[in-house]
């Protein structure tokens, strides 16, 4: 289980963030006392840090700058500032991503998992049942049989696969697609899912994606 450290001084927001992340299967640690935020930040063994820019005392950019000299743990900046300069600065100080408030929760989760994946340098292929999933090639293979997925199908499969066994709402799938600049509508999503089902069926997994009425889909 990946552990995430939240450095955010707004109590409500911090609590809501913890709630969201815990429900999505992360362990969460929060900083409550900001008098020595940096010490706690450096001492933490988290796999990823969510860092607010405006903090009491030292601001997030300064913390990040110091932290990067010592540790490589991925950092995602969260901010309500809307200046390009802040983003440019944060990225130059070594932030892995930058998200402005109010953020879409699904996108936040997607970005977190993307950053974690990128830094974990996971193998480019993973196994789903006896099907080999190649994210780089965008294909599914079983034995000598290979099915090439379109970009949309791959995005859908990846979201379902990352949350295997959980119900994934159509909205979450939509958000993931739109976040990848694929602006499809509701009908097109249905079409893509049925195509993906077809391809999975070819590979001997016709029951892989189950529809839960009014809730979404589950990859079994």
């Amino acid at each position, binding site marked *: 289980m990946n552990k995430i450290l939240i450095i955010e001084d707004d109590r409500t927001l911090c609590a809501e963030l913890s709630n969201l992340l815990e429900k999505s299967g992360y362990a969460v640690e929060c900083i409550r006392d900001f008098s020595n935020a940096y010490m706690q930040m450096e001492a933490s063994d988290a796999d990823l840090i969510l860092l607010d820019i405006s903090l009491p005392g030292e601001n997030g950019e300064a913390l990040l700058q110091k932290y990067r000299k010592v540790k490589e743990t991925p950092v995602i900046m969260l901010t*309500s500032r809307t200046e390009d300069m802040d983003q440019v600065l944060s990225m130059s100080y070594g932030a892995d991503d930058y998200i402005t408030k109010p953020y879409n929760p699904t996108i936040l989760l997607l970005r977190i998992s993307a950053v974690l994946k990128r830094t974990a340098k996971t193998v480019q292929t993973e196994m789903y049942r006896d099907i080999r999933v190649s994210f780089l090639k965008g294909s599914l293979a079983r034995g000598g049989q290979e099915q090439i997925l379109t970009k949309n199908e791959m995005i859908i499969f990846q979201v379902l696969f990352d949350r295997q066994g959980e119900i994934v709402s159509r909205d979450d799938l939509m958000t993931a697609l739109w976040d990848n600049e694929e602006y499809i509508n509701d009908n097109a999503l249905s079409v893509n899912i049925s195509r993906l089902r077809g391809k999975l069926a070819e590979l001997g997994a016709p029951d892989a994606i189950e529809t839960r009425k009014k809730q979404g889909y589950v990859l079994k």
Partner: protein
Amino acid sequence: MTVSGFIKDRVPGLVIRAVALAVIIIFLAAFAVPFQAILAVTIVFVMAATAFELWEYYRKKKFYNRLVKALEELDKKYLISEMLEAPGFLEGDILVDTLVECDKSMAENVAAYRRQNKEFREYIELWVHEAKLPLASMRLMCRRSPEIENKMAVQLGRIDDYIENVLYYARSENAERDYVIKETSLKKTFGNVAVKNREALQMIDARLETSGLEINVLTDGKWLEFILGQLMANSVKYRSEERPVVINVYAEESGTAATLRFRDNGIGIPAADLPNVFEKSFTGANGRKDSKSTGMGLYIVKNLCDRLGHGISIESEEGVYTEVTLTFNKNDFYTPR
């Protein structure tokens, strides 16, 4: 200063001197002073008076003509006190002192307003920042009830939009340069806008078509995001109920510039209103139909484009479409204001 104007101004003095001369002549005549003596006195008197007036005329003319000319040439008239030389006569000295005092007082006044303005802007920036925190919390909270999440997200999105409007209005009215121009990916910038508006677009079942966005332009990413967000909001607001909503965004690059076209198939803008849509508080015929129009959106957009040095134009046919074109200059021709 003209001769006739000067003489007119001196009439009382001249009249008094003429009367005095007449009285002197009558006196001298009464004491039976010889005619030649009276003539000599009169000539001396008139010559002295004339010489004095001429001297008076020339030294004043020199000062005031310079003043008038300097005032004409200045485009910032309030700088006049900096342009004057010492006049060397009483009224002139008083005038110059007055102008200098006035200027000083005005400068203090302007500085006070400027400070007030700056403080207000800083407060707005801070306020926007603060207002976004509860918004972010609420956005996370509404995830707990999936059945209303989208509807809530749309409404929260609207609040966020209004908040940003205030921020960018304050920014666009400010003379300070607080933007960062850099190579910005149109695809990514538009992507952020699209994701932000996804729920709203999906609720009206709008189709979003893009092409050619794989280019970089020189702009401030956040400002451009706001601009595109406003255009998107307009397309949603002024959609036509008669047909499915289609929003077309396409970009192309030519030798010296890149253009981004943002086109919808909404209700369009009446030809009579079209030239005025970028004006402050202009709502037009469409605005009167929709009570939510403030007439500020496109005004702010135009202002931001002007400041970034981007071109913006609008084309529309009532009942058919509206198309806004943004033009981004390439490096060599880039001239921000």
